């Protein structure tokens, strides 16, 4: 099995022809250094954070089936066909790695975090992590320990909240002057 020597490897998943290595967040720098030096993944192409708050819970107007699947004969049966598999924690951070060589390959390294749980910055492994980690902090509120300049990237510096979180409302920006007139 490939990649079994990755330090802190928790789980190795393969789906849609893509390999995902779930790694212990405490050993992310070790794992990334190993992948860069031993497996030749010289390029970090992206860091994608995702919020799984409310994952698998019924929506306001929707219907969610059972884990086995939904009963198509039940009146009003619509929406999700089955309850999606539970996730270990609220946030995932996916590091998409690319091997730029004659033998190209991609791998996704993933860590799972609770709200406010810190993960070590990989900026010393790949300098390209700089803005990607700042964006994950800005949009999702993932704190990266050891990042030398962890400030907001896209939102203004004094912005409150992290807009891409699931509990951040869509269009939730207060309208100026509305209170003053009331």
């Amino acid at each position, binding site marked *: 099995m490939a990649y079994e020597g990755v330090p802190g490897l928790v789980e190795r998943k393969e789906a849609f022809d893509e390999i995902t290595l779930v790694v212990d967040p405490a050993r992310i720098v070790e794992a990334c250094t190993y992948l860069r030096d031993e497996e030749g993944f010289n390029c970090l192409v*992206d860091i994608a954070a995702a919020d799984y708050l409310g994952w698998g819970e019924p929506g306001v107007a929707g219907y969610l089936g059972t884990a086995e699947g939904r009963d198509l004969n039940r009146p009003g049966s619509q929406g999700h066909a089955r309850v999606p598999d539970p996730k270990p924690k609220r946030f995932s951070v996916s590091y998409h790695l690319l091997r730029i*060589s004659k033998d190209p390959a991609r791998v996704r390294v993933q860590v799972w975090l609770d709200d406010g749980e810190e993960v070590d910055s990989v900026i010393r492994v790949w300098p390209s992590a700089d803005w990607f980690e700042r964006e994950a902090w800005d949009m999702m509120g993932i704190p990266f320990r050891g990042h030398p300049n962890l400030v907001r990237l896209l939102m203004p510096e004094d912005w409150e909240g992290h*807009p891409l979180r699931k509990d951040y409302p869509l269009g939730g920006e207060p309208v100026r002057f509305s209170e003053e007139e009331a």
Partner: protein
Amino acid sequence: MTSVLPTTSVYEGSRIPERVPTILDVDPTKHDPEDILTVNFGPNHPSTHGVLRLVVDLDGEQVAGIRAVIGYLHTGFEKTMESKSWWKSITYPARIDYLSFQSMELEYVLAIEKLLGLEVPRRATWARMALAELNRIHSHLVWLGTSALEIGAISLFWYAFDDRDAILDLFELAGGTRFHTRYVQVGGLAEDLPPGFTEEARRFCEQMPRSVDECEALLDRQVIWLERTKGIGLLSAEDAIALGQSGPMLRASGVDWDLRKRMPYLFYDAVEFDVPVYPEGDVYARYKVHMDEMRESVRIIRQCLDRLDETEGEPWIADDRKVVLPPRHELHTSMESLIHHFKIVTEGYTVPEGEVYVAIESPRGEAGCYLVSNGGPRPWRVKFRPPSLAALQATATVVQGCLVADLVAVAASLDPVMGDVDR
């Protein structure tokens, strides 16, 4: 494992700033802090390709420090897409990188198709390739015209935009609109290519290489252009990879890397084309890569057009009624079609649970899309990997030793589209 890296390096060691990779701090041993003048270059400046703000520390004419500030065009596309059905959200990616709209649509649709496991008819794939390559020429022409304009070559702007117009005419012919066509659909295309498209496109392919030669002749024999681009904005291959560069940035630093060749998608392994690589790592090399890529794109388009003629009359969209809208005429006669149409338009189709990352070679480099689905009718999470953001991360590395006038040329050579950077 043999290397795709060049044999010689542009400079010794690494130039990526030590403390923060994207901030160039003023070195007090080289510059007297008393002499430093801090200037805001943008966000509103005619030559920053949109709303890019560069905070520059100047020692006389010399750039001593730099910090790029972005986010002025942040519109929250990714958040908005989470609230739209899969079907409706296809309109958004094209507005992110607004110069390579076909590529962005294609990348997002490919990601959905990967989750669905949908087979796309070959005619649709050939058409997608032809449009993606036309889009590459379009994007490169805009880059060429505006970049040259910023360094003072005004007339080139009109030459470039003349050819760009011919491409937009082709898009209009195919999809009905010139920009943001939303022509690429999950399963194939919105409509078949109209009669006469391949003839028009062939006419364009006849004229385009001549236009590239013309533009190149205008610039390559101009002393000002050469002096302002050669040896400016250096980036070595190792630094480029470490900073996550892709596309023309990598190839201009001597890295023989193109996703179309190395990790082929669509039918790129079935067409003949070369990947231009220049090892100099300066602004001039980036310009040459762009010019050669336009010629190669024409070569690819020609091969696609031949295949499009061969597949004339074949289906252009997959026959999967759970995902693809039924043909319009069936709605009047078939109850099933009417139900499918109603379900897709109101509720939207569902996409199997899972996560995928799909990357394609957009005009600016690796454009990736990370998609998470919970099995419902809307995406749970959409995250785009912006090649422009990666390119801008290199600003602090490439401007070292530059004069303030070079900043314009160097920033332009990174080819950032601010919509793509800020999303």
